[in-house]
């Protein structure tokens, strides 16, 4: 059965696309960008509506989950080592103990199918098919882990405004977040999976500040521990030309890293106006079926065989 177009949703999205409701206070009106053959059309830097899709790899960037971020994680506090580490993670790590043969000719690290590390810097085993990953068992991904999936021409996200809020919608697992434009974080914040996000325009950059996470989700797919409930995410969205948005993120977690923070995570998105915002629902039954057919047989046959 072929997928039907979501006619009413598409119509709504088109109406919002042309609505001024999503725009901030544009300074000087539309600007012509200075780079990129596909981006050289007039655009309003305060219009983030989209829809956007994770850019495919290009020279200088992989944009494939967290893999291409090579900034070392701050050292964990003793409390974090006791309370946040996972038993194992399913994907590669960002650093740590190399697997045998990782430096052989032709081996490419930082690609899902070519592991580089047997354990992360904190000793958490990596590349375990039964390990933890964002959205496992259809659990919420939460930010910033949810950004691991808009990548490589896949998994859209879009922004839509309703009054004093901007909603950020992710195709992957149909997660969505609310960015409040006209208020501060509540003092009596109730922790949630997505946290509480406030946003404001800093010239042409939408700055989003999120706290109030419930501590039940991963930092990203390649980090072997969860966020604590003190995790603090700062995102900066900047539309650099008509067809591209760049997201810069900084991670803070006083319980995990003390007074240190983890900067430099960047995602690249490109405009995908002709793409459908497809249904990507996490069905526990479908995941169980997949595990039965693939994950469990591989797990049972786990061996010490080295990378070929």
């Amino acid at each position, binding site marked *: 059965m072929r997928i039907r177009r979501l006619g009413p949703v598409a119509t709504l999205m088109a109406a919002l696309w042309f609505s001024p409701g999503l725009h901030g206070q544009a300074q000087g009106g539309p600007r012509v960008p200075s780079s990129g053959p596909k981006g050289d059309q007039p655009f309003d830097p305060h219009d983030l509506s989209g829809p956007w899709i994770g850019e495919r*790899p290009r020279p200088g960037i992989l944009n494939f989950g967290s893999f291409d971020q090579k900034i070392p994680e701050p050292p964990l506090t003793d409390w974090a080592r006791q309370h946040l580490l996972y038993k194992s993670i399913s994907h590669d790590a960002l650093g740590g103990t190399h697997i045998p043969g990782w430096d052989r000719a032709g081996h490419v690290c930082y*690609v899902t199918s070519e592991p580089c590390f047997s354990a992360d810097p904190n000793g958490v085993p990596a590349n375990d098919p039964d390990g933890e990953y964002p959205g496992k068992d259809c659990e919420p991904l939460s930010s910033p882990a949810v950004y691991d999936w808009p990548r490589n*021409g896949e998994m859209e996200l879009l922004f839509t405004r309703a009054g004093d809020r901007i909603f950020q919608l992710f195709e992957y697992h149909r997660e969505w977040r609310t960015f409040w434009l006209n208020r501060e974080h509540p003092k009596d914040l109730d922790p949630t999976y997505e946290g509480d996000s406030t946003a404001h325009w800093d010239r042409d950059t939408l700055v989003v500040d999120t706290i109030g996470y419930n501590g039940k989700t991963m930092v990203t797919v390649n980090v072997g521990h969860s966020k604590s409930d003190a995790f603090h995410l700062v995102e900066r969205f900047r539309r650099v030309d008509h067809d591209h948005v760049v997201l810069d993120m900084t991670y803070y977690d006083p319980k995990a890293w003390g007074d240190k923070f983890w900067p430099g995570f960047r995602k690249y998105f490109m405009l995908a106006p002709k793409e459908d915002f*497809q249904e990507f629902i996490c*069905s526990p039954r479908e995941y169980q079926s997949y595990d039965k057919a693939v994950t469990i*047989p591989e797990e049972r*046959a786990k*061996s010490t065989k080295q990378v070929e």
Partner: protein
Amino acid sequence: MTATRSLKGTITSFDLANPHAQIGLDVKGDSGSVEHWTVESGPAIRAMKEAGWHSDSLKPGDEVTIFFHPSKRSVNVGVLIQVVFPDGRVLPLKTSGDKTQPNN
């Protein structure tokens, strides 16, 4: 994933679902014994649909040749590259950075 293999067999199931599509394939050996394989897609469903796949692209009973990257753990599991029908039709799976796709 650098190792590549192909198998000719009969489709037993095809599930265009999350997290990865799965293809069930029965492969008859020279001795007449049948081995069952499960081949999953690497990319998510969106990439498959962009490459032309639909939920009815494969049906139980279809005779096909599947090109895939076999599991490194010596089980009958692999990651799909493409499916070729007896009449020459190809269901590719375009993946960025995959340098091991066989020539059509």
